[in-house]
């Protein structure tokens, strides 16, 4: 990924989504805290967009996805889902 591609994510948007990463379920808070620390600053615009899409999911569905209790048939989310499952 080039630096110019990375620059496409605005700082404001990153800060907004950092706040939205606060969830209603402790388990998600814990997983996402690690995800933010390990990956957030290096996300590509596509990865970032996928993450933002997942943040719109209801907490319970997102946790089931992270815990591999369900899967999502959407190739554009696969990479971020894998990252969230691994952290």
């Amino acid at each position, binding site marked *: 990924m080039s630096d110019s591609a990375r620059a496409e994510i605005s700082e404001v948007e990153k800060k907004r989504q950092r706040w*939205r990463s606060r969830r*209603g379920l*402790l388990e998600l808070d814990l997983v996402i805290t690690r995800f933010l620390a390990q990956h957030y600053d290096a996300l590509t615009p596509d990865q970032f967009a996928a993450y933002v899409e997942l943040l719109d999911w209801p907490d319970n569905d997102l946790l089931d996805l992270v815990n591999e209790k369900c899967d999502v048939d959407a190739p554009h989310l696969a990479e971020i889902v894998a990252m969230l499952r691994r952290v």
Partner: protein
Amino acid sequence: MSVPVRHFDAVIVGAGGAGMRAALQLSEAGLKTAVLSKVFPTRSHTVAAQGGVSASLGNSEADHWHWHMYDTVKGSDWLGDQDAIEFMCREAPNVVVELEHFGMPFDRNEDGTIYQRPFGGHMSNFGEKPVRRACAAADRTGHAMLHALYQRNVRANTHFFVEWMALDLVRDSEGRVQGVVAMEMETSEIYVFQAKATLFATGGAGRIYSSSTNAFINTGDGLGMAARAGIPLEDMEFWQFHPTGVAGAGVLITEGVRGEGGILRNAQGERFMERYAPNAKDLASRDVVSRAMVTEINEGRGCGPAKDHVLLDITHLDPNVIMSKLPGIREISIKFAGVDPIKAPIPVVPTCHYQMGGIPTNYKGEVVVEDKVVEGFYAAGECACASVHGANRLGTNSLLDLLVFGKSSGNTMIDYIKSQPKSLPELATADVDRALARVARFDNQTSGVEVDAARSAMQRTMQAHCGVFRFKDMLQQGVTKILEVEEMVKKTFIHDKSKVWNTARVEALELENLIEVAKATMISANNRTESRGAHVRDDAPDTAETPNGRDDKNWLKHTLWYRDDNRLEYKPVNLKPLTVETIALKTRSY
């Protein structure tokens, strides 16, 4: 002071179950109602509730609100106010059926009625035998409740202010509440929300402990704001704990693990429950297990570098049993404890779950201080103390509390708003200035204590000195320590001074709320020298007059902590229900 002011009939802080139930009442009555929330409403912590909501519908077998009332009083270890408890249990069937009509997808019986499941502490015929009283929507009761209430509120034109943080209460010179000062997180702009009636429904403050099941959002903001505005906090020594949460994370390990043969061990690898409960051992009741765990840690036999937890060992179990009988435990352990329980034991510690105390209210949702209603101020849900949970909450009574007292406070507010002159009075500015000064401090202060450092000092102090099982000397030291932590909090600073989405500032402001709750808890616990419900002390003697350490002669009373001088006062428990006879004092045993 030059802060823009927005005007409403009612302003509600909090969009969890309690806040949205109240808002619905007000908006449907045609009143202009603002609801502020730090997060999108359906991500409020109510989403975490799985077990269900109780109501004596009697759909599966005979049940009665009076039996529910008995269970609740007993659960509260007689510290609950019996007028509020009667009110809640009588209203329960109405509010649950109402929620069903709002679109809540409850699990159903074949005949279409709401399905009810058994739950610990739910009994028929005044404690005789278990009864099915819990109503649930699969394992997503809280989530479904938030959705139903949110949709309904949108339809009723409730004005939501999402990602806004209330900072402080505004009171006039006579103490009447005029609204709140709030900050829009996106811009850091500060507004006053002025209203005829203000409701706090900000949820619990479980994050005062280092091990908590509560999401990060539960920072007790309503309690901090109330305390700074001179309102005392009631019964803050009472917190419900769960014996086994993953140490350092808080995620619960079900008690089923011990049921399947899990063994608790100390740093020496000893199966210490054999000493505390020679017969039941690891299957002893919750309080016995919690007490033993804390005693081990306190006496220096805890595990890990800080000797602050014990181990739950299932390495001797057949991996197939673990996988089939305890689904999810392996994943939780790997993910949150970093150990595979098939190969190594899981670090666990008693974990804070629910706050029984809060802002003192009556069953109408009015905030009451020294027998007088604080005009214009209401509270409901986990941040309030009505008090229906007393010294210990019965499972599923919390979601019920949200519905019943959300609705009743909404109704009380409607009456009050209608009794007021059409135009709002002139805004008092002293409290607004105080809120602005709190924010300005973080803009100006460039060195001091890091917020994370102060927060973890607070959490460690609370966990070590005021956990599930309490010791006199630890509490006394705890008071000194928490006051030291308060000094740290006063010196916190943040690096990021920007205006847009400054989450560091939000977290610094949240910590100023948490510390108020932590002080209230420690100081109240230190002074209550008996054991009652969830407040259990090593030094409270178990005698004929004080069975299990409960001392009704001296301590059948509510604690009130005042922030100004850390003063404690006490008020009597209301033992008089609304229409039935008092549920007489008895020793609590299950």
